[in-house]
């Protein structure tokens, strides 16, 4: 079982810390791949965990490798595109999707649908609320709904993936709350812990959180029949 963390911004930079610290002191011997084509900049400091500027996957990879020496951590310094997605995600992977656009979520969900065994744990947030989705396939059968099954906004995204955006578009980003990023990362870590320790995917396929309402709600949904 290899682990892929796609997106190392607000959610991914925190999640990678949690996952690596936990696995460093376990008997885990797989590969952890960090995936991102963006760069850490000064403006990211208010809500992203990094100690070096430069490509996010590269600098976060160096940082985590220096601290967690029992792990094998590889950076993949590009965005996930249709061309390279088969290099990034393979059968048997646990994939953490920490991206900031639905276009990439859909790309990953659709590609995962072609694999026999894969677990996708995807997190996203708005200002004070957000969600974590768990999509899983086992033996070529979908055992938890895909990222798009109950989310038409992901099935038909109104945004674009970062590799298709101009520099001006990339520079423009909606404000985000640090605590919302951390909440999504933490819930993704909860899901990972459940899977890692039991070998089973939780029956709930989506977890919502809302900081303003101080609430969390885990939802069980059937896999839609075709």
């Amino acid at each position, binding site marked *: 079982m290899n682990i892929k963390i796609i997106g190392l911004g607000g959610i991914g930079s925190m999640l990678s810390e949690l996952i690596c610290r936990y696995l460093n002191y376990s008997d885990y011997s797989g590969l952890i791949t960090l995936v991102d084509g963006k760069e850490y900049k000064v403006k990211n400091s208010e809500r992203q965990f990094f100690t070096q500027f430069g490509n996010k996957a590269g600098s976060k990879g160096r940082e985590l490798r220096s601290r967690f020496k029992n792990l094998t951590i590889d950076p993949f310094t590009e965005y996930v595109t249709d061309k390279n997605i088969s290099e990034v995600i393979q059968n048997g992977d646990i994939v953490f999707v*920490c991206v900031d656009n*639905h276009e990439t979520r859909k790309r990953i969900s659709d590609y995962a649908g072609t694999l026999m065994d894969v677990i996708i744990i995807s997190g*996203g947030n*708005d200002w004070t609320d957000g969600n974590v989705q768990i999509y899983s396939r086992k033996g070529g059968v979908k055992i938890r709904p895909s990222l798009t099954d109950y*989310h038409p906004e992901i099935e038909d995204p109104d945004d674009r993936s970062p590799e298709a955006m101009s520099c001006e578009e990339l520079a423009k980003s909606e404000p985000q709350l640090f605590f919302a990023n951390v909440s999504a990362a933490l819930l993704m870590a909860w899901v990972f812990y459940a899977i890692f320790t039991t070998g089973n995917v939780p029956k709930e396929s989506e977890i919502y959180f809302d900081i303003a309402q101080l609430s969390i709600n885990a939802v*069980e949904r059937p896999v839609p029949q075709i």
Partner: protein
Amino acid sequence: MAKISKEYLEGKSIAELRRMVVHDFGIPGLTKKRKSVIIDAILKKVNSGKKAVGKGASKSSKSVVSHTPVEAIKMSLESTLTNPGNHFGNKATTKIVVSCGAAKGKFAVTGKSIATIKVFLAEVLNIPKGFPQAMVNGKKVDDSYIAKSGDQIEILKPAGKKG
């Protein structure tokens, strides 16, 4: 309650009889039986009750009523007796679970359409504008669906976009 006779019971619908047999007479296992079977069971229960009253002084009566005071009842209820004077079936208000994202609660929305519920609970459950898809007991439904007792309603909240 009106006097229970065969004619009285035959005047009831099968749905009313099914509710009566469970809630008023506490007879299990009959909710899927034919009307005549339910009526016979109710009449038998009513008559056996009368006999028990008649034999109240007799020690040989099989129907023994305990007079020990009830000290505690532990149960989980979703219905509240809000209109005790109403006809059977309209005496209680049943609350059902409605959720949207992280917000969740029990609300008295049975008998209301999904469209009405979305408007009614928009602020309470922070339902996003555009009124997204609703699901009842895990199945997608349209806005004309009428909520029933026992339903679990979820208004699908869009996924968080940023990360």
